[in-house]
């Protein structure tokens, strides 16, 4: 049983001082795990004073699939398809984070064309993730379906690109240790170029639908403010951190891959509320389009795999490594400990959604239940990586 009493308000919650027969008691509502707006099998035990949230305890683990223990019993290569299924919307970036960690562990180099491909696919993934988020956030606000379907219509084009390159829309299993699996033909690069060139027009139309919309602004501005100090202390990363005003983007800080070659800005928010988190993602999509146009233009010819890389019998020397990238949701990192065998001795996934959920209660206190749904939507969680 939960040891802390759910019906007692959280410290810092403002509860009305009088609880008499007219106003009634605190009410505990269990939202989820089967709930259309909790972005997966996610449960929130919400204690309400009227409609105001005075306590919120997230409960998850419904999608726990024991991924880290499976990693200890599978070879390094065999874990790559499982990483697709962590953040199942963004398989290309999960693959890259894992490949980066293994390449750090084994000291492998990656050819230049593969680095360009990784950047192209990661930015395409960022586009599709942020598009999904904009659609789902509006769905949570109650705009039943229209913005979501426009977003998904655009996302389908990116998924078609992934399917024609790697064979699968979402479970791509594309990155390998030392490079990429499939070399795209020039036709694919042209199709990607056409998609990216048209994406700006889609974003303009989508913003015309949403950004100035009075209902959206009234529902999201001032809701779920996150201060910069709390964000840094709570380990929040990704667009949520930048919406709070902290300029920390791992693409700039760690300068991994070939990101230093690209000139892109990192948008920052002023207020840290839900509207800022939505706008940051839209602005990041525009920056991603710039990166993509340059990368597609400059991608060199050449090999896509390190010639010394082995598929079978891959046994990195004993040691450990932590590799991280700026995924669309935040910092996704893999910590691997090798004991010289074919399987890792410890395989740990640092999932951004898991850590970003730490401050869910802090953000929701004082707001209504409907706002709690929107705040959860703006954190952008995927249960596959929260629970692993």
């Amino acid at each position, binding site marked *: 049983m939960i040891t*802390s009493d759910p019906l007692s308000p959280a410290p810092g919650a403002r509860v009305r001082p009088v609880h008499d027969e007219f106003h009634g008691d605190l009410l505990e509502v269990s939202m989820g795990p089967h709930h259309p707006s909790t972005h997966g099998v996610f449960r929130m035990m919400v204690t309400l004073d009227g409609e105001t949230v005075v306590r919120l305890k997230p409960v998850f*683990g419904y999608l726990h699939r024991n991924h880290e223990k499976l990693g200890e019993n599978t070879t390094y290569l065999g874990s790559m398809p499982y990483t697709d299924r962590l953040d199942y919307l963004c398989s290309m970036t999960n693959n890259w984070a894992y490949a980066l960690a293994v390449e750090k562990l*084994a000291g492998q180099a990656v050819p230049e064309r593969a680095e360009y491909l990784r950047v192209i696919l990661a930015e395409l993934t960022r586009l599709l993730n942020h598009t999904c988020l904009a659609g789902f956030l509006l769905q949570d606000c109650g705009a039943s379906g229209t913005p979501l379907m426009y977003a998904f219509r655009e996302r389908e084009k990116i998924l078609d690109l992934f399917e024609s390159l790697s064979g699968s829309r979402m479970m791509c299993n594309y990155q390998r240790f030392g490079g990429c699996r499939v070399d795209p033909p020039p036709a694919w690069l042209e199709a990607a170029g056409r998609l990216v060139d048209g994406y700006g027009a889609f974003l303009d139309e989508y913003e015309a639908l949403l950004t100035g919309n009075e209902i959206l602004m009234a529902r999201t501005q001032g809701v779920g403010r996150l201060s910069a100090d709390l964000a840094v202390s709570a380990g929040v990363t990704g667009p949520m951190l930048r919406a709070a005003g902290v300029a920390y983007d791992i693409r700039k800080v760690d300068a991994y891959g070939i990101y230093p070659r690209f000139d892109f800005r990192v948008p920052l928010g002023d207020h840290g509320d839900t509207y800022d988190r939505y706008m940051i993602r839209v602005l990041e999509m525009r920056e991603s389009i710039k990166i993509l146009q340059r990368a597609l233009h400059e991608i060199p010819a050449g090999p896509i795999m390190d010639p010394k890389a082995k598929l079978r019998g891959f046994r990195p020397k004993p*040691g450990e490594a932590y590799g991280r990238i700026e995924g669309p949701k935040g910092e996704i*990192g893999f*910590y691997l400990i090798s004991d010289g065998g074919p399987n890792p001795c410890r395989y740990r996934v640092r999932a951004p959604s*898991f850590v970003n959920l730490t401050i869910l209660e802090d953000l929701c206190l004082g707001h209504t239940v409907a706002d709690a749904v929107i705040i959860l939507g703006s954190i952008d969680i995927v249960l596959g990586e929260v629970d692993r």
Partner: protein
Amino acid sequence: METPEQIRDRLLARFPGAGVAVVANPSPAAQHSLALDAAHAREIAAWLRDDAELRLDYCSNVTGVDRPDREVVETITTAVPDPAGGPARAAEQKIKRTQPGCLEVVYHLYSMARRHGPVIIRLRTGNRTDQVALPSLTPVWRSCEFQEREVFDLFGVVFEGHPDLRRILMWDGFTGHPMRKDYVEPDDYEWEPTPHDKILAKAKKHYPTEPAAPGGAAEGAQP
């Protein structure tokens, strides 16, 4: 950014009695870590966070590692004098001893203010059975809250000072710590139509008689 050796020296100067050691990392990543003793861990963590040079205000990753007990064979060579008065012979003796294991918690720290990192610190418990308590670093970095709960849930490390230490991924009534190397899953067998190798060995205990073929009679599968 400073090397782990420099950080260790500054820490020992600031906290004279603390146990701080550099653990080398032989892989090409060369991410060396600092092993801290449990008694001073929280004040060292607070110092790392607030120090003007380091400003490690962001704890990125908290990992539990299970180091099981290991059998170590040691060879002892003794000199046996020759009774006839000649030169002494060397006699070898092999002794087997069990090196006790421990549970280890590894923290990856970065600095958002100074944009450097990682500084990796490790805390080790006394053993894997009764001395499994470690100080919680949640009062220093709030991001440890859920991650330490996960280490408690899956490994069994008890974090003293954690505001809300309970299971997070497994359900509340669960017993055992699944990520330990010696964890045996309960024998709640579900009929498996196509078992082979290890799963077949486990399934055989539950088959009523010797099955005719893998998947045998599909008596449970009639619509």
